[in-house]
């Protein structure tokens, strides 16, 4: 009787060790690779926008496609800080020995999407200028296999847990509008 119980426990233990453990390590690796893909794609996307000064739906879709190819779903947050030199100019005009402060106003994801979504069948471009700042923040929204397994064994669950995340930001170096 006791022997049977031990055998059952041994089988369960062996199953965990032989199946779940490799599965966990492999799924961890998958996440690593996804992380790498996402990070590379994000950096490339941001640097492309930075050096051309142009954001189009085409570029954005390609980026989303790239990161989705990892099999996860992501939340993409974009932010464009637009440099406004006018307040500074006013300060200088009033007092020639002072350089006024530069002001940035910010466009967030929804506003950026609004300005690149095709309208009347026409593709549109969000043009940024030299001195603007563009940043992108990516997090996965689904629970990856490795997260599920971890949650099963030791609970780390919560709404905000993500394992794949990437962010990149930088100053725009070219004027996007024009020919």
């Amino acid at each position: 009787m006791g022997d049977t119980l031990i055998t059952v426990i041994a089988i369960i233990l062996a199953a965990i060790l032989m199946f779940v453990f490799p599965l966990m390590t492999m799924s961890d690796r998958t996440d690593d690779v996804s992380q790498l893909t996402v990070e590379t794609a994000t950096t490339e996307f941001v640097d492309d926008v930075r050096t051309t000064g142009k954001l189009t739906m085409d570029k954005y879709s390609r980026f989303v496609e790239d990161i989705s190819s990892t099999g996860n779903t992501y939340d993409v947050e974009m932010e464009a800080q637009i440099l406004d030199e006018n307040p500074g100019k006013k300060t200088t005009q009033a007092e020639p020995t002072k350089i006024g402060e530069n002001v940035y106003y910010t466009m967030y994801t929804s506003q950026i999407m609004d300005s690149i979504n095709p309208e009347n069948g026409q593709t549109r471009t969000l043009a940024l200028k030299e001195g603007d700042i563009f940043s992108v923040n990516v997090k996965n929204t689904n629970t990856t296999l490795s997260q599920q397994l971890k949650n099963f064994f030791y609970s780390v669950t919560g709404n905000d847990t993500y394992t794949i995340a990437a962010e990149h930001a930088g100053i725009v170096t070219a004027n996007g509008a024009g020919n």
Partner: protein
Amino acid sequence: MKYQSLAVIFIIIILPISMILTSYVQNQVKTLELQTSYDTKLTNATYDALKAYQLNAINSSTSDLANSKLRDIEASVNTFFNSMATHFNMDGYNKEILQEYVPALVYTMYDGFYIYSPFTNTLEEADEGATYSNGDEIYGLKPYIFYSARYNTGIIDVVITYSLDNYITVQGTINGAPVNKSGYLLDNIGGTTTARTYRGVPIKSSEVLVEDVRYTNSDGTLGSINDCTYIKVNGVKYYNDNGTWFSILNGERYNQGSSFSETNSAALMYYNDSYEFTSWVRDNLGGLMSHDAVDTITGERIEETVDYNIFSTDRNKSIEDTDSNFNEHRRAIIKYSIQKNLSIAIANYNNYANAESPNFQMPELKEDEWDKIINNISIISFMQGLSIGGKIYNGYTIVTNTDNEEVVALDSIYIRTTDNQYHKATDTDIGTNIAGANLNVDFERKTVTNGQTTQYYYPHEELGCYSSIVGQTKVEVTDINDYMEEKYSSAQNRNLAIEYFTALGRERYGMYRTNNNPDVEVEKFR
């Protein structure tokens, strides 16, 4: 064997494999991460270099002269290496150490380019105490290389130097007679020498220009005049202070002996000269084919595969259209000239680099990157040889500059409106209340200092408009020439087209040119 033992053996086998795999993948991740972060750092350093060049050039009244340009570029190179040191956490490392990883920096200018890379100094006669001696290996700016090609058909033997727009210089012999001519190639010019039209848009034959100016007097006090009348001749602005004309050099005011005419007709002169020059080119060089172009030194053919007439209006294209024969050819020459010299510079770097450093190679630039280089002044930086884990870093970056006095591009003309704003020329929100048009650098902040006080000023007080300058939400992306032609012919905004084409002509005419005779240029404006 018991299940437990099986499991243990399994673990013994799997654990090391998984550990090695983990560290391998992590290494790969690190390498790629490093690579992307280096790319970003290189872009940032190059942007800093460009910003330094821009700032120096805008604040200097002589930025278009060769020795002053060299100084600005040297400063920009220093900024690049300082910025690299900071970005790479290599503070304290000096330029000499970082230079080992930078085979070349390229500054593409209006009609040629500079390469910053090592070379062997050739100095046949040296003064005593000279900084460099013959045979020294120097890391510095090499001589300026023009975007030129030689054409030799027997009757015609000329070198044509191209530029970022349709300004060309022709030097050589035609039918044995020496020629040295330069000018803009433009079709679509109509009217007479006193009343020109371009694309059907009349050009203002005379205008009075005003801007705010600040300067240092000879006694060291700072002076300023608002809405001062000025003219721009050969890259120098001359201001009118109640009849006394003066120019500004390094912030200091220099009164001129004689005066100029208040009204200037630079725009008209631009279109007249272009008309004359274009007809001259068609008459004398009209037969030149693209396969006639050969390398100025080696004599190799530049365009082997295709053949077309360079200055013709085939396919109903005007010479200034972006896809005209002339522009195709111009692009091919510029690309050839940069590619050739740059690959030589990078290949040569191996002769100067340390024995242990890797073999430097010229990366292949993409077509859209060439587009950036060919249309604007730009800095191309290369970095190679840094170890990033699994491999050796090999990267390059291109940053283009749109605000400068080197080139008046089609989109460098900003439009002023009477509501105290300035706009991009293709702003769709622009009204009919046009006040004038100026070059974009005239809206940038300038500095004047007398050693104690530094003052800042903007030549034009207008504020940037929010739909085309600050944010660029309402800018039409189109061919500006066609856009303006349409605005005029459909009577939507005739003033806009008139001001735009007049300003374009005026600003291009006022640029500094190496081939200009300053005395002759100045006389035209008396």
